[in-house]
């Protein structure tokens, strides 16, 4: 089996702070890879580097054989991303958001039409397709973002806490679909989550990261064995400790608050 993602000795420093501290791992083609870690562990930072958004301080990355720093374009056409933070245009309808995405990714008009209907039905938003996204609930927005990331049928899909704030029904629905896609189309899935049972259930392979370092990886069963735990949650806590990670509000959070203060529409 070939490697879809190869990361070697990856480092990202913000000032003197190591957000990602010499990390290496591989993800095979067709695998569902779960990335777990406490708040501030460096998960999003790694996803940003894998998806061309952020430049690494040092180390090497291959995504589908391409370097995200040098071959941005190639990497971008093979991936789909669901960001941790919202990224929809609230002033456009669900359909328009998908249409724009399809055009940006060069999906033909015909495919766009077929897939849009199929995906929107799947995430159960077909009846709301002509509504403005700003009127959607948090869960509906999330479902739309997932549908959008799949519209161009990427080889790899990155999901940064895709099921955050979703009810169990929706989480099930979405994971079932992602697994089906993974089986049928051999799409590689790279996801992060704070729901341990979810990771246990869907991931083929798991890496646990803490303070920028990978502290353990393997199949879920192996991690439980390693720590002699019943559940992945126990294994996770044993591996990463009980301390709560103090996190400053990020700049984007602060900007969002400001946006509200300015009272945009």
């Amino acid at each position, binding site marked *: 089996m070939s490697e879809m993602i190869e990361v070697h000795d990856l480092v990202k420093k913000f000032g003197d702070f190591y957000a990602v501290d010499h990390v290496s791992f591989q993800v095979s083609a067709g695998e569902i890879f779960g990335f777990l870690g406490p708040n501030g562990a460096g998960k999003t930072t790694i996803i940003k580097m894998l998806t061309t*958004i952020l430049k690494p301080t040092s180390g090497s990355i291959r995504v589908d054989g391409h370097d995200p720093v040098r071959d941005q374009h190639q990497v971008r056409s093979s991936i789909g991303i669901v960001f941790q933070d919202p*990224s929809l245009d609230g*002033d456009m309808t669900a359909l328009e958001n998908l249409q724009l995405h399809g055009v*940006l990714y060069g999906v033909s008009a015909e495919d766009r039409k077929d897939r849009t209907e199929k995906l929107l039905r799947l995430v159960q938003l077909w009846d709301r397709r002509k509504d403005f996204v700003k009127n959607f609930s948090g869960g509906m927005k999330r479902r739309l973002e997932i549908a959008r990331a799949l519209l161009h049928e990427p080889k790899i899909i990155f999901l940064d806490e895709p099921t955050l704030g979703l009810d169990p029904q929706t989480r099930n629905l979405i994971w079932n679909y992602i697994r089906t896609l993974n089986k049928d189309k051999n799409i590689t899935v790279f996801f992060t989550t704070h729901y341990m049972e979810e990771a246990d259930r869907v991931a083929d392979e798991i890496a646990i990261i803490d303070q920028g370092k990978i502290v353990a990886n393997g199949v879920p069963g192996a991690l439980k064995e390693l720590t002699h735990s019943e559940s992945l949650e126990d294994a996770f806590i044993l591996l990463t400790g009980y301390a709560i990670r103090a996190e400053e509000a990020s700049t984007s959070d602060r*900007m969002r608050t*400001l*946006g509200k203060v300015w009272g945009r*529409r």
Partner: protein
Amino acid sequence: MNVIYILCLRQLKRYFRARSRIIGSLGQPLLFLLAVGFGFGPTFKKAGGGNYIQFLAPGIILMGILFTAVFSGIEIIWDRQFGFLKETLVAPVSRFQIVLGRTLGGATVAIIQGFIILVICLIAGFHIEKPALFPVALLFMFLCALMFTALGTAIGSVLEDMQAFPLIMNFIVMPLFFFSGALFPVHGLPKALQIAIRVDPLTYGVDGFRGALGEVSLFGIGMDLMILGILTVILLAIGSYLFSRIQL
């Protein structure tokens, strides 16, 4: 459908959907037209300046374009704040295509706004003296719209939040308008003011636009067109450059 077109279309849709914004940004030009236009009219006439509405209207139309264009460009800040900018920036398309689509969209919106104000000016008693030159007048509207959207893009690419918005209004947009000769004739003014007027890009827009609509042009339409054209290209280049350097 292509990338530039769809991004352009997005700007247009957003504009037509935000009716309060259309009406809101008509407020300022209207206020100037009515209060300043009719208020100063008699004084202007007594001083031998002729019909003040004829003199003022071109400047007011470009004012509407200036405000709308800069604001369209600055919308990048909102898109960044609400996360949508990421969606476009990680797509497999060049930043140049994105910035071009956005800028053309913003400029189109600004021109539409200019047209609405033109119609209002016509209702308020403004005449187009030389209809044959109207295509040239359109060209001036287009160049101003493009130039100021590019300016907005440049500003929006550098700023991270809207805190600086009043600063931009008071130290960039308003001065651009007030020093453009939109409100008063530029000859016979103190030296310092003359210099400010000469370096304001909008001066050449107002002057040429006025000429094309049949009023007196100070520098000549050809000269205005050339200066404006060059400045537009420069600002487009700066805007695209700064946009291409946005870090998420």
